[in-house]
């Protein structure tokens, strides 16, 4: 078991027989429960879950929590429909042009390489975690994926380091993640806990039967449902349910493609005289981000050329200039954003680059489950709202629950309660 990423002003807590490793901000009331408020908020992200899967019969506990609370059938991930940007949007309430995190994978112009946005410094704005901490409330992150653990850095009062993680997927199984969440609940009891459960997403990515039977996916759904119920039971056992608001949502959904439905933009872009050797691609599965690296004077012409070339490829849904106002992605997203159709995926720079059948990032993966349960009196009972709920609405909703204010410039999302 390795220690936390950043040491320095921190104390370490080894909790539980499983050897779970937590780090806690120095000076924080590490073992004192919940700061100055009895309110508790839990944001549980069932990573990659589709909203219809809650009705599949495989997730009775999630369905019961949804049906007993406030449900948003029209819920949406935000572009680019990837894990890191949407988790950042949840904890900031801001769009990527303000967070600096538009996708999982970007081309870093300073480094001259494509990389994941997994560094604490990648978030260029304040977060809900910091805002609550400054109000004397405590926060905790239990994030199953190493890059999420990375990007949120030391922003939470208490952090669990995801371990053990599975090879390739680089995530901790949900059973382990929920062990950590329950341990944090029992021993640290933060006011806000932010939990990512990665199994549904990871098994979905790898599910070779995704276009048909979704065997692996179904197994993950059933197990994750049980794990969530374990956490809910722990809330009750700890006497926290009546003080709790539990937000359950996904960061994006999932779409599957067969090996014959790959889109490669590397070749077509290289075949264009203007673009050859002057475009870098950050492949995000269902979305390719294109970066012009040639002379600035030719950028406008190059953007139009990139869009034309991309749209000519079978399986491409749309190619937008990154500056399209509705995208609000910021310069980190490059110059052109290309989305694929349902049932397709990008594989750049070559056909072997993206072998996984399950992908997201494109509009076909926008719909997400989103519901609010819990025993606190502020949580509506057995209600359904036709309002559109988005990942950026989590932060203002939680902030409103705790009576915390908005960041400078206001939220891009809104309080759903």
């Amino acid at each position: 078991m390795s220690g936390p990423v950043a040491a320095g002003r921190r104390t370490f807590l080894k909790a539980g027989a499983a050897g779970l490793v937590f780090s806690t901000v120095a000076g924080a009331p590490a073992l004192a429960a919940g700061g100055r408020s009895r309110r508790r908020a839990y944001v549980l992200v069932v990573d990659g879950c589709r909203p219809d899967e809650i009705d599949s019969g495989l997730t009775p506990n999630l369905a019961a929590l949804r049906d007993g609370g406030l449900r948003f059938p029209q819920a949406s991930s935000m572009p680019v429909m990837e894990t890191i940007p949407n988790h950042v949007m949840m904890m900031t309430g801001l769009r990527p042009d303000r967070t600096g995190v538009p996708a999982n994978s970007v081309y870093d112009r300073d480094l001259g390489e494509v990389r994941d946005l997994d560094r604490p410094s990648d978030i260029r704005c304040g977060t809900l975690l910091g805002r609550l901490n400054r109000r004397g409330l405590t926060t905790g992150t239990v994030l199953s994926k190493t890059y999420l653990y990375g990007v949120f850095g030391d922003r939470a009062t208490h952090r669990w380091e995801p371990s053990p993680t599975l090879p390739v997927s680089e995530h901790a199984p949900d059973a382990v993640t929920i062990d950590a969440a329950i341990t944090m609940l029992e021993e640290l009891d933060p006011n806000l806990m932010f939990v990512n459960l990665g199994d549904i997403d990871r098994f979905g990515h790898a599910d070779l039967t995704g276009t048909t039977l979704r065997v692996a996916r179904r197994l993950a759904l059933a197990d994750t449902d049980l794990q969530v119920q374990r956490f809910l039971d722990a809330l009750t056992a700890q006497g926290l349910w009546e003080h709790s608001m539990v937000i359950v949502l996904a960061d994006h959904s999932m779409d599957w493609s067969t090996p014959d439905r790959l889109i490669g933009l590397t070749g077509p872009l290289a075949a264009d005289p203007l673009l050859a050797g002057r475009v870098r691609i950050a492949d995000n599965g269902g979305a390719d981000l294109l970066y012009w690296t040639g002379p600035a004077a030719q950028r406008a012409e190059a953007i139009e050329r990139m869009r034309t070339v991309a749209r000519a490829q079978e399986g491409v849904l749309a190619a937008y200039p990154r500056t399209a106002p509705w995208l609000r992605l910021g310069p980190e997203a490059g110059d052109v954003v290309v989305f694929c159709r349902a049932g397709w995926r990008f594989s750049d720079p070559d056909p072997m680059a993206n072998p996984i059948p399950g992908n997201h990032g494109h509009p076909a993966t926008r719909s997400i489950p989103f519901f609010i349960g819990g025993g606190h009196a502020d949580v509506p009972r057995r209600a359904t709202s036709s309002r559109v709920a988005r990942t950026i609405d989590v932060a203002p909703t939680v902030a409103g629950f705790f009576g915390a204010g908005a960041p400078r410039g206001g939220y891009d999302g809104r309080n759903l309660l």
Partner: protein
Amino acid sequence: MLIAAGACLGARSVVLGGVTTLDRRTLLATGTAGAATLAVAAHLDGPATAAGPTASERAGRGVFRHGVASGDPLPDAVLVWTRVTPTAASLPGSGRGPRVEVRWELATDPGFRRVVRRGTFQTGPSRDHTVKVDVTGLAPATWYHYRFRYDGVLSPVGRARTAPATDASPDHLRFGVVSCANLQAGWFSAYRGLAERDDLHAVLHLGDYLYEYGPGQYGYGIDDRDIRPHQPAHEMVTLADYRQRHAQYKEDPDLQALHAKYPWIVTWDDHEVANDAYRDGGENHDPDRGEGDFHLRRARAHRAYDEWMPVRLDGTARLRDGDRLFRRLRFGRLAEISMLDLRSYRDQQVASPLPSPVPAPEAGVSDPDRTITGRQQLDWLKGSLSRGRAQWKIIGNPVMIAPVDFGALPQDLVDPVNDVTGLLPRDGLPYNVDQWDGYTDDRREVFAHLRDHQVSDALFVTGDIHSGWACELPYDASTYPVGDSAGVEFVCSSVTSNNLKDITGTPPHTTSTAVEETIKANNRHIKYLNFDDHGFSVLDVTPLRAQMDWYVIGDRADRDTPITWSVSYATRTGTGRVEQVQEPV
């Protein structure tokens, strides 16, 4: 439409070993196939605006004999309609009679103590003495009462409800759903049934509001008996014909009651012009039999429709400013209704060497150059089916969109074969090429759009086919239920127009049951099918689910026939699936 008979007769030839060749008359016969204060009110009493009979004399002959109607509710507006008969000679379609001024008023109470809008409207023979007012400046989600006054005579009082505010979140919406009302085939008891309810917000009419045939051409049952013969006593072709036919229908008491009770949201199908109409013609249009140019005929039909129906064509209540019928009506965040026009822009139906009951093997149904919507309307429809709009995207759909096919192969197999041969319909052999099944490329584009953008809660509400259906909308019907559904389709039965048992002359639940089971066995996405009954439906929409209740009537020939609840199906939000529920709303 051409083929409900198709399905019916196709199955009939299989089940009964019967009909294999049909002449035009048979197709027609097979029907589905072929196709403010009392003081203010007193103030409105003024001197007669035209010389002639006294007010009491005019009232006795029915100045407002065609009733009142309302339609196309918006959050701040609703359209109100009537027709006046100011003189004995001012008969519909006559082109006779004076120009007159009709007063109208709209109040929040049935006693007209609180009148909130009033005005005058000039009408005359140029518009067949119809009155059509787009009343604006109203409050959302509010019941209003309206009436007209001419020469001291008051019209019946109608009522209309405005739509909820765009950003409102109503807990439910409830609509009556009807289509296919052939006056010759019986009494409009279905309209009576809806008019007796007090729980609706509006009525959706999905087309075939009236029929073009003359007496004896298309009536009740296999013998085409005319319960009430059409006027004029011939197929409507001229502007006067269309006006007179509209007038005859508007004199029906059940139709009048339902128009007065609720605002209507309407679209046309084919019979408002002629059977199996398409962009440049129709099965029941023959220039060589003196019916003239089709486009001229259609223009006359559309003009009469604009005059006589409570609908905004081209977005206005004005006449002759365009005949675009497809439009959206928003009901808060909960629902938006997009009404389609699937006749004015479509290509001609594919020709098949076999009669319509027989599944059509023509690959032409999948020709991407053929359209049922037209490019502009298809792009507009895709806009309606977009994220960020209202939760339930309700499509008022004149003809069925669910695939009803036989022998469909998985798309992954068909496409490579067609790359070489181009011989196979991409979605199997359709039984009715007058529906979206005859224009599969348009359907594929709509379904692909829904899938590409992960749009949920698309709900097609359909008429035309003289039968009740509840269907899921699979992306690939051949492999379904493996794979996802693009949405749901609920189809209402006909008000009176012949269904399967009528055209076969067989008892209910005999021939039809066999056909229904055959179709469902070949189309696993079809969960409910009723070829036996006439009636109406009630569509109730909440944030949690949309439910359709089917009500059936007894004998169409019996004006007082009983009305009973038959069955209900619902779709839960986000599922694209249907399930039977045990009781109506």
